[in-house]
Each structure stands twice: as C-alpha cells, then as structure tokens.
C-alpha cells in the first residue's frame, strides 16, 4: 500500500480512491498549474481558450427545467428515528436534505414562538446522508463471496432455493413501516423467521413497560410537556430514541423570548459528559453502577419503600430537593433512563407513574416504533445458530459481526449457517462473511415506508435514478419467496398496500407530496394501567455492583451512531460535539482519573474488561473529559470499523494510525471498536498503555473562555430580577464613529442565535458543509487545525469557582455552546485589510467574499477577531466524479490558495428574493433561511431582515439578552446572540474577569 505523505494533496481521500483519483486528475491538475502560470502569456498572446460544448437532451423531460430545484418529500434513514425530509433535487440528483416542516416528528411549525415556516429540523447525521448515496465505495452490483460479480438471476436462484430449504431467518434492524411489515409477513408466511435487533438497544424500556403496564413498547416521550426532566444517562438531546424531536420539544420549554418567562428544569445523572448533561441545569456525576441506587433513593423519597439503596455518591439533600421538585411538577415531571437494565427502567416507570406523567409527558398509548429490536429474539437466534438449526440467514440493514458485543462469535456462527445472504450497501464486516451479497439501493434511491410513532406513516421516495446495478431490499425478498408481486417495482407494491391499508381514501399523490400520512388522531388516548405486580424485583437495581477501580462506560457516538456512518466523511470530520476530536473515538477520563491511571492525552491504551464472561479489549487513544465521573473511562461506539470503506482508511499518516497491528488488508482502522465492551451489567475494566502515541485531531484545543464575556450566561433567578443579567458590561457608545455611517436601504440581513436554545448538536455545521461545498480535510489537517467548517460550535467549560489556573480540570464544569460563524461585521476588520477588495460589504449588510478575486494573503483571517475565515491550504480535490454529484451547483468550489467563509448562504438569499419577486411581493420573514437556521432542531439560529421591523431578528434586537460578541472592539456584527439562561439559583462568585490563564493545551 502506498503510504500517504505528509503533504499529500489528496489528504481527504483514501489510498485506493487516491490512486484512481490521481489517474484522473493528476494530469488535469498539472495542466491547470501550467495554465495558471501561463495565463499571463495567454492574455498577451490573445489566444482563445478551448471550446466548451453543450449537449442538450433529445427530448425534454416533462415538467423539469434544467437548473431549477425541485423538492421531494421523503424520510430520513440515518437512524431509526425516521424524521421526515425534503430532498432538494436539481437536474436529477439530490443536493441537499432538509427537514420537512410539516412533520410531527421534526417539523418546527408548532415549535417556538418565532416565524420559521420553512424549517424542519434535521440532525447532523440526517444532513450527511447524501455522502452515503454518492460514496462510490458501495457495491455496484450483486456479488458472490468467492466468485465476485454475479448476475442477479444467479443470486436470486440461490436465495430462493435457500429459503425454500427451510430454517431460514431474516435478521434486520428496526423495521416499522406498514408496507414493509406486510412484506415481512409474507416472508413469515413462507416460514422465514424474522429477528430484529438494534445495535444500541432500547429493549429494556419496552420490556419494563411490558411488565409494569402490560404493553410492550417504547412510549413516546413528550419533552415539550415537561417542566422538570430528570435523566439517568439518557442522552435524549443527542442520540436517544428520537433526538431531533426531543430536542425540539425540550427547547420549547426553554424559550425566554417575546415575553415568556418560565423554563423547564433539566437534571442529569450520568457518568460521561453527554450533550444532554452539558445542557442540564444541574448535573451529577455518578458511575453507571450507582444509577440504580440513585433511582431507588429517589423513588424512596417519592414514597416508594424499596429499602436502603446501595452506596452512591449523590448527597441526600440533592435527592431530597429533586424529589420535592418532581413532586411539585407532578404530571409535568419526567424521569428517563438510558439504562439497558430492565429493573432500572421499571423504577423510572414507577416514578413517572407516581408523578402522574403517563398521559402528559409520556404517551404509552401511541407508542414509538423507533426502536423495535428484540434482544431476546436475538439471543434465541444465536442459540439456534450455535445449535445448527438455522440453515439460511438473510442479513439486511444490520452489521452483527461488528456491532454485537460478541461479534467474533457471530462470525464463527455464520460459518455454521449453510446459506448466508446479505442485502447490503457495501461489503461490511458481516456482508463480507456472507456467501451472497445482494447490492441494495441507498435510502435515497429507493421506495420505503415507516411508522416512527403509531399512526404516523411516512414514505421514502427515491431522489435519483439508481447509480449502480442495485435493487430495493423488499424487491429482493419478494423475488426470493416467489411472491405474486415479485416482478413489480416496489413502488407499485407500496402504493397498493398504502391505498388498501393506510391512505384511507386520501390520494396517493398527496401522500407522496406530503411525505407522510398522519393517522395518529385515531389513536386511543387511554394509557394502560400501572400494575404494581410488574415491578418484581426492581429494587434489586439499587444494589451497587462493585466494578473495581475503573468502570467502563460505552455510549452511542453522536456522529457515527452505531457505526453505520463510519464511512461518512462529513460526520467523521465534524467530530463528537462534546469531545471535539475528529477521526477517532477515545478513552475519555476525567483529568483526575487520567492522573491516577498515569496516562496522558494521546496515549493509545488498551481498555480491557471481563464482559459477561468474555474478554473484551478496545484499543483507543486517551483524551481528557472534564465533568466525567471519577474512576470511569468512557468510549464511544461506532468507530473501529475494519470494512467500512476507504474513507475511514488512509486518512492520517502511518504514525497516526491508531493500531498498526490491525493493519487489515492494507488498511488502518479509525478508532477502536467498543461494542465488545457492551455488557448487560456495568463493566469494571482496566487500562494499559501500549506505548504508542497519536496526535489527536482536535477541533478546539482550549475549552475555557478564560472569563471573557464571549458566551454570556446567567441564571433564571438573576434574569427574572434583571433581564439584562449577564449582559450588563459597559460598552463604548454604539453609534460613535468618525466616518459617516453606511446606510442599508433595502434589506439588511442579520442573524440572532439564542444560546438558550443551542444544544451544541452540530447539525448546522454539517448542513453548512453540504450546502456550501465545504471540503473535508482529513485527520492530519484537522490536527494542524485547518478544518474548513464555516460554522463551528464553540464549547466552553465553565465552573463556579474563580479561575484557578486549572479551570478545565474542575470536576463538574458547566458547559455552554456557542455557534460561531462569520459575524458579517458592519465595520469588518477583514475588509479593510484585503489589498485587492476580495472581500467587501454588500448593500444588504453582508460581508461578501469573492473567491476568484482572492490572492491568499491570509491577512483577513489574521485580522478576524472571531477567527471564522478558512484558507484553502491545498487543493482539496473533488476528484471523484460520483462524489462530485453532491456539490451544490450554485456555490463555487474553491481552489487552493483562496480564503473562504460563511456567506450567510447568499445563494439561498437570492433564491428567496427571486421567488418573492416572481410572486411580486416583499420577502416574508422566515421565507429565507440559511442552511444552519433551516436545520437547527431547536431554532436556536434565527435569520432575517433587520430592516423589517416585523422580523424575528429585528424584534429580538430589543431583547435585553441580545448582545454582540466582542462589542467593545466596535466591529458591529450583524450576528447577535441571546444570553444563555440556566434554570438554577444565582452563583455567589461570578466569573473572574481578569486572569492570565493558560490552561492545559497541547503543544
């Protein structure tokens, strides 16, 4: 294998692709360089450029005009939450995914008190789904393990014969759709057993409800109804069940704009620092093993009599106070837990029941179908495979070899199954062990349906013609069981099923147009009764298991989720929003624990543990995580894929490879696989240094704001006394200027970010990259701090006590998130210093950058107080023709040597103005949305016209919480922020404003 050199132009591309790319582009690149140099000569010589050609179609497709964007409703399949999406399709290819504004799951139409008619939220993972579609590292057709490429017919025949042979099992992830389940039912009728499981299982919740309420299912949590939320390791703002929905709902209770004056309260108990914990008003660090004890203690305070809980580290007064808060909240209280332990879930159910939360904050009548995996079925399947009573296994949409705790065992068991068939996008860890690989369509190429919550049926439709010789998974199954519909396109099957069972007289075309059919109105509102008998031995959860000196806690990675997005460059580069290290997962420890374990940042360690009688090992680099419980090490799932495709390989130098021993078919893997560490009980483990060291690709190297008034925050108590609390520093007079002021007569675009609503999820960051063709640069370049994101989320760790020189070493810091993008300053320091006017101010108040004028002096970036300008250090080559289909044709792909930055999505502004002009009306507030504002699940980012007095941003200018970052240097940004208000009592000692700190930083 060719080893990447330090300064490789193809830094964001893997080795295999690079070779291909180099063949294609090297000659062109050289040519470009030569022509660049020769351009002067050409001007003088007056020679003409080469001819360019245009070849129109022979017949014009009906209703489609080239260059015009059409939107199609569909459903996101990035995770099983199944948010509704709109695909922006241009010239027959999707170029952007956005949330569907009408969806009950992720639409924001009923959300906050602001105008956002066009916005439907979508998380970072949803935004990044286009990568999966265009990534050329997919199967391009059906394959046989040994024979390589085969004909579909051959595969079909083999599969059909295998299924006929009996003892066939279909192993899938969650399948919720009505039509989908009809197909599964047909399979079942032919004797095929269906087993579904979720890599990150929520089965305990369903199981607990089966016992306590007699209804197996995950209820739909209504965070929008809750005034007090207590979470036990349930990262509902990040990854738990339906994060976009939960975040949106939760944020509606945190809104203090336009006269609202109450906030919900969020209390978190957790071991690692999760996104939810970071947003909590009160956060307590407990080990996973203490969770049950704290729950028992809390339940006792609420009237249960479960006996003395085991030892735990939470002070009694905290639990007393929490219990009284929950009591006061009554049915508006909510306790959730991310535990896999059924008993713990039962305790939650008991508390919620006692509070009367069922029916308000928890809806068990209209249950969620977002996690339908059944761990018991899976266990049975494994036993059957072991026993040899499975002769055919069809694996579809899951990757058990990678994501089962004992994946190695599953790999062995696969050998005992005579026929193994994978319906798969790529030859992943499981599929590559199967005999037959049926190349499946990407989610954006195929028809599908879902029912994320009971009664809400959503449709997925293709946004592009199949890129390769692939097939819809359902069509495969129908074909293999020789169904009557086997030769129909799945669309026909789906349509017929919906017309018969779902549409209820509504037209098919309206359903396709909407993307979903909401039949939930017909759901029963009656909640099943609580059965105290179902509690069983729930109180045993309170007995703390001794896990020894170091407890291992694993969690679903925010960006790669259960590992299925490991191939996604946007998500790899975006990094976990809490840890802010990209291109690897990490062994996270609190600084004190790190000291105790004698490890330093970047050390590669082996975390080993005895999990359910297995020896499990995970090799990952160490990283400091302030706020993590002492004596714990947290590792995220989703990394360490060995067969995820080239994007995860070849990034970084040999030295950077996490584990040179794992050189697997010439590729390195990124991070370590933590699935083996997933146990049914809290796991005690140990770490040992390997002696290797890695340079971590940190997005941010410093996590304190050094007491500077950048992310301004206050408490609800103070805010109620004075609405400008936390935002009362003395500033120079705002209108003082020696120059006559420029007037903005028409529009004056502006943005306001509500720091109270921002949960730091990073959806805006990926949305921006997709919309604006922002390149990914790879591990080495991120390490050099050259990531290209136009918008970043600054996470600042703060603490009660005045600065002591070791701020971020504090045990339980508060974390604030602040999206930071070009502030479009009226007095922009960058503009003044550009020698060639590559950047100037538009008459609509935007700081505009003309890339093709830029000569790359980098002076503007130096002079930017917000450091939001990004320089193209190399040619971040877009050299794969398929991958290039993802590029937005309305935005220039920047060449090397030029500066780029947030344009406030100029192309979207112009598009909005154009459609308003066509309708002969003024631009309405909310009709123009930047990509970040559009996708923000919590509407933290608001965009509009400051000259329009009715617009949200203009009205918010009067809010006492409104402030501009670094107002004292009089750059007069047009992006403003609203002070973050935490629902907690005021702190006695304010932040120290003056100190000379230099906290821990990598040198």
């Amino acid at each position, binding site marked *: 294998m060719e080893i990447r050199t330090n300064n490789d132009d193809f830094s964001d591309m893997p080795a295999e692709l690079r070779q291909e790319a180099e063949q294609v582009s090297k000659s062109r690149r050289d040519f470009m360089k030569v022509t660049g140099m020769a351009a002067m000569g050409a001007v003088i010589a007056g020679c003409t450029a080469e001819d360019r050609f245009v070849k129109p179609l022979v017949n014009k497709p009906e209703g489609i005009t080239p260059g015009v964007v059409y939107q199609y409703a569909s459903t996101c399949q990035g995770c099983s939450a199944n948010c509704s999406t709109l695909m922006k399709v241009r010239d027959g290819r999707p170029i952007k995914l956005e949330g569907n504004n009408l969806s009950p799951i992720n639409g924001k139409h009923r959300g906050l008190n602001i105008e956002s008619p066009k916005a439907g939220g979508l998380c970072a993972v949803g935004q990044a789904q286009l990568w999966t579609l265009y990534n050329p590292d997919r199967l391009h057709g059906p394959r046989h393990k040994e024979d390589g490429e085969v004909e579909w017919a051959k595969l079909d025949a083999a599969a059909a014969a295998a299924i006929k042979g009996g003892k066939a099992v279909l192993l899938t992830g969650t399948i919720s759709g009505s039509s989908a389940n009809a197909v599964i039912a047909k399979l079942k009728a032919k004797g095929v057993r269906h087993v579904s499981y979720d890599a990150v299982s929520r089965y305990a919740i369903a199981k607990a409800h089966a016992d306590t309420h007699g209804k197996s299912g995950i209820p739909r949590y209504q965070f929008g109804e809750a005034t007090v939320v207590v979470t036990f390791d349930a990262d509902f703002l990040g990854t738990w069940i339906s994060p976009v929905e939960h975040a949106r709902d939760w944020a509606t209770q945190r809104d203090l704009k336009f006269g609202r004056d109450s906030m919900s309260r969020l209390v978190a108990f957790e071991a690692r620092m999760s996104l939810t914990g970071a947003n909590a008003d009160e956060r307590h660090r407990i080990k996973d093993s203490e969770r049950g004890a704290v729950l028992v203690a809390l339940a006792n305070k609420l009237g249960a009599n479960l006996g003395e809980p085991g030892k735990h580290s939470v002070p009694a007064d905290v639990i007393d106070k929490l219990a009284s808060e929950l009591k006061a909240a009554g049915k508006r209280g909510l306790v959730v837990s991310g535990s896999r332990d059924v008993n713990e879930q039962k305790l939650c159910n008991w508390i919620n029941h006692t509070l009367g939360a069922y029916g308000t904050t928890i809806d068990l009548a209209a249950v969620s179908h977002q996690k339908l995996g059944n761990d018991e079925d899976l266990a049975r399947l494994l036993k059957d495979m072991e026993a040899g009573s499975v002769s055919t296994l069809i694996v579809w949409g899951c990757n058990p070899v990678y994501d089962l705790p004992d994946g190695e065992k599953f790999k062995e068991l696969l050998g005992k199954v005579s026929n193994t068939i994978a319906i798969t996008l790529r030859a992943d860890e499981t599929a590559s062990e199967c005999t037959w690989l049926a190349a499946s369509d990407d989610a954006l190429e195929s028809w599908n349906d879902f029912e994320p919550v009971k009664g809400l049926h959503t449709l997925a439709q293709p946004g592009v013609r199949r890129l390769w010789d692939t097939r819809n998974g359902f069509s495969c199954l129908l074909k293999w069981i020789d169904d009557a519909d086997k030769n129909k396109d799945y669309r026909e099957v789906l349509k017929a099923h919906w017309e018969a069972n779902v549409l209820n007289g509504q037209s098919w075309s309206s359903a396709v147009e909407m993307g979903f059919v909401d039949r939930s109105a017909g759901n029963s509102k009656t909640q099943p009764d609580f059965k105290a008998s179902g509690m069983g031995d729930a109180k045993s959860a309170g007995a703390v298991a001794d896990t020894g000196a170091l407890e291992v806690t694993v969690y679903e990675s925010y960006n790669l989720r259960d590992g299925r997005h490991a191939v996604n460059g946007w998500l790899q580069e975006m990094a976990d929003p809490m840890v802010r290290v990209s291109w690897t997962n990490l062994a996270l420890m609190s600084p004190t624990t790190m000291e105790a374990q004698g490890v330093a940042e970047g050390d590669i360690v082996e975390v080993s543990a005895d999990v359910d009688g297995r020896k499990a090992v995970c090799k990952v680099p160490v990283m400091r995580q302030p706020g993590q419980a002492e004596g714990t090490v947290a590792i995220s799932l989703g990394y360490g894929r060995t067969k995820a495709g080239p994007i995860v390989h070849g990034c970084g130098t040999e030295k950077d490879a996490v584990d040179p021993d794992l050189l697997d078919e010439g590729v390195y893997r990124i991070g370590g696989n933590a699935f083996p560490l997933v146990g049914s009980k809290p796991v005690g483990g140990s770490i040992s240094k390997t002696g290797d060291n890695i340079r971590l690709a940190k997005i941010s190297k410093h996590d304190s704001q050094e007491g500077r008034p950048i992310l301004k925050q206050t408490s609800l108590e103070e805010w109620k006394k004075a609405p400008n609390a936390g935002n009362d520093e003395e500033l120079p007079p705002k209108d003082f*200027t020696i*120059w006559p002021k*420029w007037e903005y007569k028409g529009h004056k675009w502006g943005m306001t970010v509500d720091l109270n609503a921002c949960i730091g999820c990073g959806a805006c960051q990926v949305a921006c990259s997709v919309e604006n063709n922002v390149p990914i640069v790879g591990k080495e370049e991120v390490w050099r701090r050259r990531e290209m994101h136009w918008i970043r989320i600054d996470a600042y760790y703060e603490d009660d006590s005045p600065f002591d020189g070791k701020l971020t070493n504090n045990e339980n810091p508060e974390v604030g998130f602040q999206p930071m993008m070009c502030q479009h300053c009226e007095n922009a320091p*960058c*503009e*003044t210093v550009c020698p060639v*006017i590559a950047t*100037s*101010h538009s008459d609509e108040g935007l700081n505009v950058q003309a890339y093709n004028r830029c000569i790359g002096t980098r002076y503007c970036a130096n002079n930017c107080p917000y450091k939001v300008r990004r320089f193209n250090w190399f040619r971040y080559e877009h050299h794969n023709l398929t991958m290039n289909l993802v590029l937005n044709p309305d935005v220039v792909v920047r060449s090397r040597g030029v500066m780029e930055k947030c344009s406030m999505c100029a192309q979207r502004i112009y598009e909005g103005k154009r459609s308003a002009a066509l309708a002969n009306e003024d631009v309405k507030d909310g009709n123009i949305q930047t990509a970040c504002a559009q996708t923000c699940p919590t509407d933290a980012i608001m965009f509009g016209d400051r000259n329009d007095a009715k617009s949200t941003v203009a009205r918010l200018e009067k809010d006492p919480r409104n402030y501009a970052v670094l107002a004292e240097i009089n750059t*007069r940004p047009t992006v403003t922020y609203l002070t973050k208000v935490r629902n907690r009592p005021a702190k006695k000692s304010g932040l120290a404003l003056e100190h000379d700190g230099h906290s821990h930083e990598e040198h």
Partner: protein
Amino acid sequence: MPKEKNNFFLGVFTDEDDVKAAAKGCNEADFTIYDVFSPYEVHGLDRAMGLGQSKITWVTFLCGLMGTTIALSGMSYANWWDWPLNIGGKAPLPLPAFIPVTFELTVLIGGVSTMLGLFALCRIFPGKKARLFHPRVTDDRFVVVIEIDEDFDEAKCREIFAKNNAEEMKQVDHDYAADPADAEASAEGGAA
C-alpha cells in the same frame, strides 16, 4: 555659420586645494573655463570656477508634486469616484488611508525623475564615450581646462597654475582626449 572650436590650455594638479585655488584664479582672471575635472567631489570647486546653483532641485520638486497629484487623484478615482464600495464600514473617500501611498509615490516619482534629470543635465547616457583630459583624471589628478579664446592670456594662466603647484601645463587641440591606458606611464611620470 558653425562656431569655430577653440583649442584648450590645461593644467594638471594633484591636490584638491591647489586646483580649487587655480580654478578660482582663472575665474577671477576672466578666462573662459571650459571645465574642471576632478576624480572625486571637491566641495566648493564649482563655486570656485564660477558655477551657480544646480537646477536639478526643480526637477525633483515638480516631479514630486506630480507624484503627489497622480497618487491622490488616482486613488480617489479608483476607490471613490469609479465604484464607491463599502469596505469595512469606512468612508468611500478615506483620505487618511491615502497618506502612505501618496508619500511613497511622491518619493518614487520624484526620485526616479531626479535620476533621469541628472543624466539629462550632465548629458550622460549609457554608451557615451568619456572624454578625458588626463589619463588619471578619474584616479588622482585634477585638470583645469581653459578655452583659448580672446580673453585667454597664456602667461597669466601659467603663472596662476604654477603658483598652485601644477604638475603639468600644456596646450592641446580642441578634440584632444587622453587615453586611460597611459595612466600607468603617467603614474610613473608623476611619481618621478
């Protein structure tokens, strides 16, 4: 009618003070001093032979002024008249920001013009053949050249030269030019 060219009488000196006195004497005697030659700049020698202020100061002044005008008008035109862009919220005609470039262009144009003016006033240009009145006039000899015209009085001149330690006195033709190749011989002779 072309003016008939006069022959020259020249005196060679070895010291700057001598030649200054000789030149002064000749000037006071109303001889037509064709020129004085010196290997280095001798302060006051020009006044001694009766030359006034050099006019080159005017070249510098006027061209410098032209530089100022070009700079100010050009910058105002480019950044204000032609397309007044909003750059950093600054005024369209930011006069303070023009000061550095105005100064630089003044100096640049003034300076380069002075150089060209100097060449023009001295009537020198690349490729011009130097006319020397003594082989070592660019080394260590000073030469006073007097035109032999109606005002010339050879005896008086010789007297002035001799009084000032002239090394050599001679009359030469109007097209006389010394060959620098003779310098070595002359050096020997001089030393003798």
